[in-house]
């Protein structure tokens, strides 16, 4: 496969430019097979993830779309959708794009074919494990990190494999300086590692059950520090890296500004890491942490726009090409969507905007502009660019490509616009009062029902987008069939000399970092750790940040089991447990949530979206029988409800074999259960279950005390009631 023609030197060393046959030229080949494998995985998982998305979107106006089984209800497969799209679709797209560009930017084959293979198959195995465990209800409930601890460990190992393979390639490079795309890959690698590890500290109970080490406010802060930066360092920085390689390649134009790329790289990774608390505005998080979240989000506008303008200005002088080249159209929509989302993000972090948007579809619209526009469209463009090159054949159909672009764009619009309207409507309806001074829509359900037409439009938009992706799959598989894979692409470059004295522009300060991958890695690490530590450490160490409340007690054994059912069924995906200090919320739900009430909540369950009402003050609001009927058939208690029914909770027997182990694990992470409580856990549990069962019997409902519904009712009736004891005591 090795070319015999005299090599042209393509090194960046000025002295060797233009010379031929200088000594030390090396012949090698690029590994295209691994790129192809990741490309296929991207296509397949992309379609799976989007399909699940359309299904859950349909369930929000037609609950029957859950097919009546517990494995396909919204609560359980919503995490499947988010994980599939983020880690399977976008993740594989990152690896595809990075493995192709890294080899060429380093003028070196990937460090180890074996590591590449382990990385590929390991990652796919993790995805399959997720696709099995999430519908089974095995979840830790941390958003975008729902996978249980054994899978978390597997993720860590595979991520390290990726890191070794990447750094090995960088060390073996035949190019003196690292191009900006690689800086972004490095920052991605190190930050995702830190985020994943810190966010995954769990105390195992069994192979498939664990409790988070952190509780309540601290847990929420860690989760959103992770969750927000998963957006930053999994959905943003790697894609910026990809943009820096593929956009100039597609447009055949120089990158607009080297200086801008330096500025926005460092500013972006430094500032992004602080912004997580903007997910917790008006929550029980300390005020200072909320304010840091707000101001760092505002300061993030310019650094994130740095990437956008560097991309758009790279197209300067090539706009006539954009008109003809569909790939560039995909890129322009992607970059524009990125610009819109990164402007909207800071605006949503302003408290008064957040007060309306949070917990509504507005946030759903916001993330989907990013996911469908920025990540989806760029992944599509890269796929369309790569596959014909890997297979040395033109694309099967330009026409289908065009249709995909338009149907995809239409899909985004049909998705986003109704969701913005829906979010705004819902936010305003929650807050509206009549002249009498009472809530205009006291019944939460009214606000939900108002949104159904918008949800139908959204599902239609999603279906359009999915249809586009299917067209792409057809087009690309046809292309593959028409060509043959160039598995090992031969290349040549002079070896890098050890001794090097920088001259000219290479003496610029940042050039040093570009020659030194390890200091670049350490520099990125330091920069992202500063913000993380400033926010996390005081929240963990300073007691006044979480004022304790004496009457708040640990959950009973039955309530712990009920809480685990709540987690298993993914109730947190639709119900929040955070009454915010607004008049509209305290009128609707009761006293606002205090930090001290969550000290035994491993994990926190504040939620991020309200499709149904908040449940933090649910305890004691309705009789047990109300909850029973509500689970059996939600529409019997709330006519028109879009909550699915949970008949299996009424018939399934509660698994109490692990009760003591659960309490023991919780004790280890700081819940003050004494030895007696732990050893008599099941006796206590059965006693409380008898009481619940007896109360239900009084209302004419015969249910055995060992059924799951009993535990869930016990938990729901406990929610937010401890603080009421304080009122009674003070009276």
């Amino acid at each position: 496969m090795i070319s015999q023609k005299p090599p042209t030197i393509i090194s960046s060393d000025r002295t060797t430019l233009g010379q031929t046959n200088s000594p030390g030229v090396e012949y090698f080949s690029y590994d295209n097979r691994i790129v192809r494998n990741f490309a296929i995985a991207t296509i397949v998982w992309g379609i799976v993830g989007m399909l699940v998305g359309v299904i859950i979107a349909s369930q929000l106006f037609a609950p029957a779309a859950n097919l009546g089984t517990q494995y396909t209800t919204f609560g359980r497969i919503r995490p499947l959708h988010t994980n599939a799209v983020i880690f399977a679709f976008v993740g594989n797209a990152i690896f595809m794009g990075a493995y192709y560009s890294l080899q060429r930017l380093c003028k070196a084959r990937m460090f180890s074919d074996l590591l590449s293979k382990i990385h590929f198959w390991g990652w796919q195995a993790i995805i399959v494990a997720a696709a099995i465990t999430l519908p089974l209800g095995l979840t830790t409930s941390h958003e975008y990190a729902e996978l249980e601890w054994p899978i978390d460990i597997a993720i860590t190992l595979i991520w390290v494999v990726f890191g070794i393979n990447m750094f090995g390639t960088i060390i073996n490079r035949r190019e003196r300086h690292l191009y900006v795309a690689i800086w972004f890959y490095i920052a991605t690698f190190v930050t995702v590692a830190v985020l994943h590890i810190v966010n995954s500290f769990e105390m195992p109970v069994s192979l498939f059950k664990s409790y988070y080490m952190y509780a309540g406010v601290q847990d929420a802060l860690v989760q959103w520090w992770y969750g927000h930066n998963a957006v930053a360092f999994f959905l943003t920085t790697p894609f910026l890296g990809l943009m820096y390689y593929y956009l100039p390649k597609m447009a055949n134009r120089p990158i607009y500004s080297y200086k801008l790329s330096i500025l926005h790289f460092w500013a972006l990774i430094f500032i992004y890491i602080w912004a997580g608390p903007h997910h917790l505005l008006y929550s029980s998080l300390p005020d200072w942490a909320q304010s840091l979240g707000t101001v760092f989000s505002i300061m993030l506008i310019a650094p994130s726009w740095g990437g956008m303008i560097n991309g758009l200005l790279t197209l300067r002088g090539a706009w006539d090409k954009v008109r003809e080249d569909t790939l560039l159209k995909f890129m322009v929509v992607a970059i524009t969507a990125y610009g819109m989302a990164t402007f909207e993000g800071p605006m949503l972090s302003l408290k008064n905007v957040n007060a309306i948007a949070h917990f509504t579809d507005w946030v759903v619209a916001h993330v989907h502009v990013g996911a469908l526009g920025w990540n989806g469209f760029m992944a599509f463009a890269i796929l369309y660019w790569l596959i014909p090159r890997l297979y040395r054949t033109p694309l099967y159909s330009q026409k289908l490509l065009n249709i995909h672009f338009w149907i995809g764009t239409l899909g985004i619009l049909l998705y986003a616009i109704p969701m913005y309207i829906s979010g705004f409507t819902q936010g305003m309806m929650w807050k509206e009062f009549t002249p009498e001074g009472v809530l205009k829509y006291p019944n939460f359900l009214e606000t939900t029902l108002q949104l159904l037409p918008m949800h139908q439009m959204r599902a239609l938009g999603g279906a359009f987008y999915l249809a586009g992706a299917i067209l792409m799959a057809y087009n690309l598989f046809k292309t593959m069939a028409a060509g043959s894979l160039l598995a090992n692409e031969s290349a040549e470059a002079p070896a890098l000399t050890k001794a090097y004295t920088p001259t000219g522009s290479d003496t610029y300060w940042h050039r040093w970092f570009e020659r030194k991958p390890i200091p670049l890695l350490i520099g990125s690490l330091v920069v992202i750790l500063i913000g993380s530590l400033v926010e996390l450490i005081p929240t963990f160490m300073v007691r006044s940040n979480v004022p304790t409340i004496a009457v708040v007690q640990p959950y009973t054994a039955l309530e712990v089991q009920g809480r685990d059912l709540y987690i298993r069924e993914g109730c947190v995906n639709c119900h929040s447990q955070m009454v915010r200090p607004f008049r509209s919320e305290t009128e609707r739900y009761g006293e606002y949530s205090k930090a001290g009430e969550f000290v035994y909540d491993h994990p926190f369950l504040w939620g991020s979206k309200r499709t149904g009402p908040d449940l933090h003050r649910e305890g004691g609001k309705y009789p047990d029988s109300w909850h029973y009927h509500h689970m059996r058939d939600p529409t019997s208690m709330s006519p028109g409800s879009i909550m699915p029914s949970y008949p299996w909770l009424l018939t399934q027997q509660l698994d109490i074999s692990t009760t003591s182990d659960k309490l023991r694990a919780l004790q280890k992470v700081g819940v003050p259960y004494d030895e007696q409580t732990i050893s008599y856990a099941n006796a206590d549990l059965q006693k409380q279950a008898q009481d619940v069962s007896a109360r239900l019997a009084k209302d004419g409902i015969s249910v055995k005390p060992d059924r799951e519904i009993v535990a869930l009712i016990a938990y729901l009736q406990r929610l937010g009631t401890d603080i009421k004891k304080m009122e009674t005591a003070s009276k």
Partner: protein
Amino acid sequence: MNLFILFHSGLFAPETSQSVLSISSGEDLLLLSLALLLLVGLVLVAAMAIYLLFILKRTLNPTATSQPAEPRTLWQRITGLRPLSQEKDLMMEHAYDGIVELDNPTPPWFMWLFYSTIGFAAIYLLIFHVIGSGDIMAQEYTKEMAIADQQREEYIKKVAGSINENTVTMLKDAKSVDAGKTLFTQYCTACHGEKGEGKVGPNLTDVYWLHGGNVKAVFHTITEGVPEKGMISWKKQLNPLQIQQVTSYVLSLQGTNPAGAKEPQGEKESSSVAMAN
């Protein structure tokens, strides 16, 4: 700075007080000379800094002065864009897999955006956490609630000031009963059924009552609720006039015998209803 404060307080001090410039003690003299010394020092340091800056600029960029001024429009200066024809001069000598980078400066508007967001952040933190107490959310909530309480009080005074547990009467005009029905359908059907036949909550159409069946007792039950049995207090969501309307509607259901009615609970109290009627 010291000096500024000295002069400042001198200028705006009441006429009766002494001028700061009139030295009356050794301490004053020392202060004044220190202040003057500081001022001279400041001026000297500033002059030195500006001089050094010029020198540095000249040594680092010796040709800068010899180049002719570039004719750029205001728009070009704000956007920081150069004509495409100059692109060749901006190309950096490196290429990565064929990708060339231009050495364009960061656009001035972009830098101003960045600086202004940093300024915003500093001011925001200063206002809320240095000047203000830092107890932002709780404060905001207390204020919001105080305003709401006041509004509600005014409103109730205006429309329903005279209605309370002791003065409540049964309303019989169709308009009021209809208003009561609307409220009932909105708030009460989940527990008491659409026709008041009882579901989780008791049957409201028979003559048996758990907490009293006369107009005053029903008004009281709705207003205060029976928390231990799951009946919530409605006084924050409904005003007394509305509660009176609902009470009247509920009592008007007496003897309607809807289908699927729940078994009687509580005590028979038809006589009191009859009396109220």
